[in-house]
């Protein structure tokens, strides 16, 4: 579905933001509606995605993984996109849009640093000023990306509030936007936030699913039995799924970070499984499924992978889970780590820890004869975390 005229997916979605931002959001809605059907804009974007970004990304038949799970497993290689993750699809789209809107400064939050990196790249490539907010804890565990952002001329601001993760970085970016809204565009990194962001980011990411469809038909002569993707905010998930929503024969699996447990205590969720165990609430501009305590305070989430470590999820994905179209699943920290090593050893591909959650589902469930796993990014950024977890010293 696409958002209705009020920006809702069922009851989810909407625009729960301070009044100071509403005019900018209205302006963005207009620009987005306009450019979505503007051939010049789309040609420009597609050319940049192709020549700068490296699209289309391959659909790779993974022989060893296939052997292991006894079905044909294909990996959608978003890890090969410039920057090493699917995030560039959206960052380029929004940066181009910001430029057309006459904004000369862009800001963004980042968790794993992939969205920050993609935004910094897009900004450098298009000649726009760029500032990134990143939780202090995430800076600690994703240093290579911090350095990459700085190399490309972006300013990286550490966020110390809360537990210093993605949720806190979003808060701080919203505050910056409220202060500088007149000349600044907020390039939000997932299908979260107020309308039109969830619909717009999904549209920019939907190229993933369009390519999966075409490549599936080329390689196997049919659509896959299932498509699997990891869900933090859910942008690579919706990107991979969107083209298949009406194909009921294709099962869609969103894999969240089960962290260390699906239990929730008063202050913390040791997971970030809002689709699986969250409640309906309002966070960061949208009504959606969130992790909250009995008073409605947002719980701190946990995941080994910074990019999944978030207490909310995109409203459209929440809606599709409620309506039964998308199956929510979890993989815990250990299963993700195992999958990380498995893909590295068997396929010679080091997957992002985020993507490893999606891969982990292969070992947990029968997904049919022809499975596509969206490999949302590469794992170079995660080597420190994995070395530490495995007690390895080099």
């Amino acid at each position, binding site marked *: 579905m696409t958002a209705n005229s009020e920006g809702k997916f069922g009851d989810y979605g909407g625009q729960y933001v301070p009044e100071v931002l509403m005019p*900018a959001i209205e302006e963005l809605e207009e620009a987005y509606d306009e450019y979505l059907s503007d051939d010049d804009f789309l040609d420009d974007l597609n050319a940049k995605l192709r020549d700068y970004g490296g699209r289309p990304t391959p659909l790779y038949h993974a022989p060893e993984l296939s052997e292991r799970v006894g079905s044909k497993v294909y990996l959608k290689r978003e890890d090969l996109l410039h920057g090493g993750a699917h995030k560039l699809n959206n960052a380029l789209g929004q940066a181009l849009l910001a430029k057309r809107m006459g904004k000369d400064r862009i800001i963004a939050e980042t968790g794993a640093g992939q969205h920050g990196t993609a935004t910094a790249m897009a900004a450098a490539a298009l000649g726009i000023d760029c500032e990134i907010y990143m939780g202090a804890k995430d800076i600690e565990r994703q240093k290579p990306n911090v350095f990459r952002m700085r190399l490309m001329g972006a300013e990286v601001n550490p966020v110390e509030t809360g537990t210093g993760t993605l949720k806190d970085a979003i808060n701080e970016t919203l505050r910056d936007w409220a202060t500088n809204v007149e000349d600044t565009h907020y390039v939000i990194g997932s299908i979260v936030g107020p309308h039109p962001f969830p619909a717009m980011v999904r549209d920019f990411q939907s190229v993933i699913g369009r390519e999966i469809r075409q490549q599936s038909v080329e390689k196997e002569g049919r659509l896959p039995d299932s498509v699997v993707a990891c869900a933090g905010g859910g942008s690579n998930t919706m990107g991979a799924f969107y083209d298949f929503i009406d194909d009921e024969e294709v099962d869609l699996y969103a894999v969240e970070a089960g962290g260390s447990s699906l239990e929730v205590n008063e202050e913390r969720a040791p997971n970030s499984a809002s689709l699986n165990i969250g409640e309906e609430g309002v966070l960061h501009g949208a009504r959606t499924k969130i992790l909250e305590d009995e008073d409605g305070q947002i719980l701190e989430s946990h995941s080994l992978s910074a990019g999944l470590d978030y207490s909310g999820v995109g409203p459209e994905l929440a809606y599709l889970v409620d309506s039964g179209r998308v199956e929510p699943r979890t993989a815990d920290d250990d299963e993700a780590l195992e999958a990380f090593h498995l893909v590295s050893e068997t396929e010679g591909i080091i997957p992002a820890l985020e993507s490893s959650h999606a891969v982990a589902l292969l070992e947990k469930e029968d997904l049919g004869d022809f499975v596509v796993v969206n490999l949302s990014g590469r794992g170079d950024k995660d080597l420190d975390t994995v070395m530490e977890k495995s007690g390895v010293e080099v």
Partner: protein
Amino acid sequence: MIEFPDEPALIPYFTAGDPSVESVPEIIEALEDGGADVIEVGLPFSEPVADGPTIQEAIARALENGMTPDVFFEKVSEAEVEVPLVVMTYYNIIFHRGVEEFVEDCAEVGIEGIIVPDLPVEESDELYEACRKNDVDLIFIIAPTTDDERIEGIMERVSGFVYVQARLGTTGAREDVSGTTYDVLERLEGYDVPKAVGFGVSKEEHARSIIEGGADGVVAGSVFVETAAENEEYAEAVEEKTRELKRGAVSGEER
């Protein structure tokens, strides 16, 4: 519903639960004693996106001290004051409790108005209906970026007073009053709802110049939060600060 005074009003804000849960009724009473005309009591939410560092930190301390919506209503009900009370909180707190129930709880403890900084008029149907049913005012914020068409839409729903946000950005005490304040006030002239200006007010002179600029009231938050947090004798300090800002507001009318 809020009875707005005829003279220039002072509307202080503080975060309930900071410096302690027990301080809530004391601070409310001290604010009234100092001359507050309406009192805004902040009900903490863990993700205060409209607030600057001072209030963010107060909210973190309040949550740490065990402030919850249940405790909030209990403590507010202990305050013995005549002036209208207003609650300021974020929408998830209201939504989670149940919109109807939240407004009924407000009415029960004598809270006469609700301010929700992350609830634009477009999303306010449910809360607006519940407020009308319970005779509670729903107060909206008008920002420097709000155009005339949006002002019109907001004015159809607002009651009690409108909260004019003096500057872009988040809450926080500043050294001067923003020039944009006066433009916004001018654009609001035709509407006969009391206008209270806030965001950045910390000094007697600020209060004076805001009233001189045509406002009916002055809202000040971070400065009261700081005053309550930094003084051992917080009730006295808060009362003194209220007196100073009220003096500024009143003098703005005389000139």
